[in-house]
């Protein structure tokens, strides 16, 4: 066992088999790494690593294939739901296909793509990482940016009378009949991380059972975009983001509805 691995095991218990051990590109304090690990655990525990295909999006998720050892394809900006639909159709519905998309990708340029994939009756899973800004391009305002939040394109803070209001995707998609499950989670505390893992597993199981579309929004720290320290970012999620974006399950039409 190499030293790194030993240290890691002391620190975090174990490393999921599906995690590729190599230096990451995420910024310090970024929570894409946490989400990547949760996905690895969930996929392993469900035993679907041989049957799952991931679609990554334009944004900081684009290189997730570097760390998560399953089939992957990257999509153009906003187009992950159709790429996933194509992959799913080509496999005649028999494989598990998920998208991992940021808030600029999903809620701005790709909002129509998501809603139409849901309306078309696709059986997919979408994991929506909401970090309240365009992280990759340097911290511009996203549709999810909070009122008052500074970004590089709202240098004095977002104003509702100028830039409108933040968009609540987990609630929005509940009106679509094919959406069986929609939840919002966060990763700022251990408890929230555990909830996120449960929600991810559930959204995958829904697809495995052929019930419909599963959607999980995950609030996530972007210290670089927010120009905050990693610790301050976690606090900001607790105080500001969760106040705007309440955590919870907004729709659950499965039999185990009470679980989360």
């Amino acid at each position: 066992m190499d030293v790194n691995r030993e240290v890691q095991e002391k620190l975090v218990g174990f490393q999921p088999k599906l995690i590729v051990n190599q230096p990451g590109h995420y910024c310090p304090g970024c929570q894409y790494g946490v989400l990547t690990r949760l996905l690895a655990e969930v996929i392993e525990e469900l035993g679907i690593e041989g049957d799952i295909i991931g679609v990554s999006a334009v944004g900081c998720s684009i290189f997730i294939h570097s760390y998560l050892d399953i089939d992957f394809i990257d999509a153009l900006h906003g187009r992950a739901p159709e790429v996933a639909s194509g992959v799913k159709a080509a496999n005649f519905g028999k494989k598990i296909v998920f998208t991992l998309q940021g808030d600029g990708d999903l809620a701005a340029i790709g909002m129509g793509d998501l809603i139409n994939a849901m309306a078309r009756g696709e059986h997919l899973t979408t994991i929506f990482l909401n970090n309240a800004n365009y992280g990759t391009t340097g911290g511009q305002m996203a549709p999810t940016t909070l009122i008052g939040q500074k970004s590089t394109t709202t240098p004095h803070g977002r104003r509702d009378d100028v830039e409108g209001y933040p968009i609540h995707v987990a609630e929005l998609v509940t009106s679509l009949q094919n959406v069986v499950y929609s939840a919002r989670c966060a990763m700022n505390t251990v408890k929230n991380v555990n909830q996120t893992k449960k929600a991810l597993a559930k959204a995958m199981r829904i697809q495995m059972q052929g019930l419909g579309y599963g959607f999980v929004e995950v609030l996530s720290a972007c210290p670089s975009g927010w120009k905050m320290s990693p610790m301050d970012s976690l606090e900001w999620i607790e105080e500001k983001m969760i106040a705007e974006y309440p955590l919870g399950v907004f729709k659950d039409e499965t039999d185990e509805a009470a679980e989360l």
Partner: protein
Amino acid sequence: MSKKMICTGNRAVCYGAIDAGCRHFFGYPITPQNDIPEYMAAELPKLGGIYKQTESEISSINMVYGAVAAGVRAMTSTSSPGFSLMQEGVSGIAAAELPAVLVDVQRGGPGLGTTQTAQMDYFQAVKGGGHGGYNQIVLAPHSVQETYDLVQTAFHLADTYMIMVIILMDAILGQMVEQIKREPLDLGPVPEKDWALKGKGAKGGQRNVFSTMLLFPGQYLPYQTRIQEKYQKIKEQEVRWEAAFSDDAETLLVSYGSTARVSLEAVSRARKENKKWGLFRPITLWPFPEEALKKTARGARVVVVEDSMGQMIEDVRLAIGDRLPLHFVGTLMRHQSGSGGMIFPERVYEEVCQWT
């Protein structure tokens, strides 16, 4: 199976695709190609295939991207405005080096333009309408039979070279009815698709990844070199063209698609009057048959006939060099000023006569 039948060019697209084993079609309505997705929607489910109606041409091309990455023969069809919307996806498919087939039944532009015939998407198809300097094979049939054959060829070439193949048609060709012999072509084997996304369980635990962002050190130039080598190989091996009455031609008309039929009629009339006219018809618009055209043209006066304001003429000029006289018969020579105007053989004949 070999069946004689009469059908439209658009229907021949469907027959060609189905006979080539295409079972996945993604479509969005736009005139004049609606009968393609309509037929595929009705037929594919009977064959165990999947038709999806998308919310836009952007969606169609990206579903094609996902489907071909998972290893099936898949396609979409559209007309000019939809072709514009697809361009980012076309560039993405070129980047991923995936085999896909796209049919553009051209209509008049720019903008919403007309719903009737034109050949104004030549640049977009041949030069790469999306960003980033890529190439794709462009096939231009001129008859319903050739449409049926070239659609099958398109799937074969796509799989052979891992490249997008565009079938560049026009409204006349899409709507016109002719007899065809529906006999599937035997084009030989294509490479195995061991790169397909089927979950890594399908490959004994070895995974497949399509990653088109080339940010890592040392990635970009080797990629560019490799795709350029591939393009070069296609240029050397896949050029297709046809010529008629060209051996002794003193005047050579150059046309593709339905306009080549018009030009051929003008040439036939000229021949009856002992005028030494010939026709050169590129079948691959990319790779353009430059060498063949140069040889065929020799010392002739060259006339490009295309239903645009002048697009293919630029490739013709590059091929023949600047020594030979070059003339143009285009959209302004249509028989009437409305959207339904067409270039008729009589007009081509008269126009060319003033230069000969």
